[in-house]
């Protein structure tokens, strides 16, 4: 039955569900990649947080791909900071992917997420950061 499992599991949202954001999970080697799309704000951040916190936490690291996120604000920033610190305590790593020049990236920079988690420009560089054991980019 394992081979029927899709590469990406839908954890939240999806077409026709009316969710402001969707979350899907996939495995990349020893790490978990969560792809979020849509908008993140006070109305849905708790649900997104629940989904993330409920994930099995045995992996070496977690990558959160925000490439398809069109909006986020302090509620999402706080979730990411908290998550980074929580993972660090368990010697796990959080990498965030957000394209340069995008509105979410601007908010992540203004709120100094890089102090807690490396922010990569795109998914591939994020994954190589994860597998390299992840020193923050300069």
């Amino acid at each position, binding site marked *: *039955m*394992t081979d*029927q*499992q*899709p590469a990406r*599991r*839908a*954890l939240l949202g*999806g*077409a*026709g*569900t*009316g969710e*402001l954001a*969707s979350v899907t*999970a996939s495995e990349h080697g020893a790490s978990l990649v969560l792809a979020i*799309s*849509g*908008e993140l*704000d*006070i*109305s849905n*951040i*708790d649900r997104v947080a*629940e*989904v993330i*916190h*409920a*994930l*099995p936490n045995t992996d070496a690291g977690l990558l959160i791909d925000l490439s398809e996120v*069109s*909006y986020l*604000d*302090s*509620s999402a*920033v*706080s*979730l990411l*900071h*908290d998550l980074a610190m929580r993972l660090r305590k368990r010697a796990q790593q959080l990498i965030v992917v957000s394209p340069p*020049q995008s*509105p979410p990236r*601007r*908010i992540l*920079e*203004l*709120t*100094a997420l890089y*102090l807690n988690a490396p922010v990569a420009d795109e998914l591939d560089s994020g994954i190589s950061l994860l597998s390299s054991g992840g020193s923050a980019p300069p």
Partner: protein
Amino acid sequence: MADYLDRAGTVLLVDDNRENLAALQAVLEPLGEPLILAESGEQALRALLHTECSVILLDVRMATMDGLQTARIIRSRPATRHIPIIFMTAQSSELDEITQAYESGAVDYVVKPFEPEILRAKVGVFVELHRERVERVRESRARAEAEAVARAVRTLQILSDAAMTHLDTDELATALVDRSAELFGADAAALLLRDEKVPGLSVRARAGELRLEIEGERVRVGEDLLGGIAATLGGAILQARNLDDEDRAQAGLDDNLRSLLVVPLISAGELLGLLLLAAQPEDHFEQRDLELLTLAADRMALAVDHAQRYADGRLLVETLQRSLLPERLPLHPRMHVAARYMPAGVAPQVGGDWYDAVELDEQRTAVMIGDVVGHGIRAAITMSELRNALRAFAVEGHGPEEALRQLDRVVLATRGPGMVATVLFVVIDAEAGTVALARAGHPPPALRAVDGSVRFLETKRTLPLGVDPDEVPSQEIYPIKPGETLLLFTDGLVERRGEPITDSFDRLLDALGEAPAEVEALCEHVLLKTATEQGRDDDVAVLAVQLIDVTAGALDLRLPATAQSVTVARHRLRAWLHENAPELDPVARGDLEVAWSEACSNVVRHAYGPAEASFDANASRDGDVLRLTVRDTGQWRTPGGRSGGRGLPLMEVLSDELTIDRQPDSTTVTMVRQLRPEVAGTEGSGAAILRT
């Protein structure tokens, strides 16, 4: 305890002179509070044993036990320590006596003969204070209860989240048994599930420091202790000391594991498994644990059922179906678009319902909805082909009539006769205020006016696609005004077995008429109100388009203080900026969206008081100056909670000027942004905000 809370106002009057007591009674009766009269310190102390008082009026000089002594005893008892005491002293009292009175715990004193008005006012103040205190106690109890409920809910959430994130039955079983053991402090745990190869339930996953040895790794329903419990479809708490050797061995209890919690997993009345939690101490599990785990077991059972169905490939079809629908609907500056899809409740097959929305330009959006007759993978593939073809015709700029004519040709050419599909194609033009539509065998859309009145936009009845190449769908054009909402739906929404279709259409109109104005909530409401009680035979899709009222000028919103309102406010601001400040670059527009959302979020986070609390959000433009204000009728609180204290600094950095006007009964946050490019975006954009 409830008793004393209810008798919140009782006033205790203590004087060994009956005439004085009667006088006090006459003075204080107008307060409308219960009065208790005591003629001695002893009587007063006895009364306090069973009545909680709000205030005590105590005569200092009494024959046996005097007032000072009585007060000291009252003060020495935890149950009465907090009750304010007003001493009554004679005119001739010396300063010394008054000092002693205060030392023994008086909060006030009155001199006899007293002024009725003053005495009444003083007592009234203490009664009121007491009420407030009781209210606070009530609140803190309610809070404690709420916290207990929240903890239980949290436990359920952890378990059901674990349930929902695994599709593989083994992974799921391991996750469920791990988390249950952790949450309920079990030393050993096992989950038994139905197994197709062997009868009964077999151990599928284990957790805990110790190992729970179920005899034979299996439970036969109806046999032995555990099988007997499973057969009842109810849970149980077992103690090793109450079991005989045979039962103890079967349940895996021994000298080490002394207590056991057993809960069955039941889905749709069917036993799917058994969850066993064991602990070393006797009486480790309480009735509450059984109740909570039983609740959680319902969710676990659903997940197990889900995983097993997934393994059968049944869930694959739903996943496939959703993957054929658009993941995101366009965020058009002039229209709000929302949609919902619900798979059939009973038939585990792909339905043929689909919808799509394409932004044609800044004024127009094409929306389409359709239904392919039949189920299964074949219907899904057809549906996907139709959707892609129609999307292409829409993007090419064909109007509804032409698009459907082309589509009909595609259907006839590629699918051949016998394949039946209905479709409705609509182009909404915000600038012209028109809805152009054509339909092939599909129900017409419904339009809701701003005043809530609803009607169907009928066109000539036409055959489904692929039936007759000579039949041409005709196009009609209807007017649509800002604030009006168009609802497209598939016939799963209006078809109910054994009911005339006209009744169902009326029900849909009723549901649409009374639905909330906001499109997401509107879709939910319509689905909820038209859903049948016992699951659906057919899948259902609905899609709503609302024309945003973007007449030039200020944006004035009044919204309920809920988290959803923040999203609504942001989407409205986005549309308003698009219309009223088109020269803003995307970064600046994004900045304003965040600043505005932060201000709204702060209102919502701290909304308290009446449930229907609301706030006002306004945007206006004066020359090159944009002004955003968010006003609520509460005290300003510095942003905290989920914003982690980052909300306010973000508002500061993202606007050129931020002012917070705190009034006793309202707070107004005003953010100003200059539109001139040499000013916009320069301030603070290089600095990072660190946590405050």
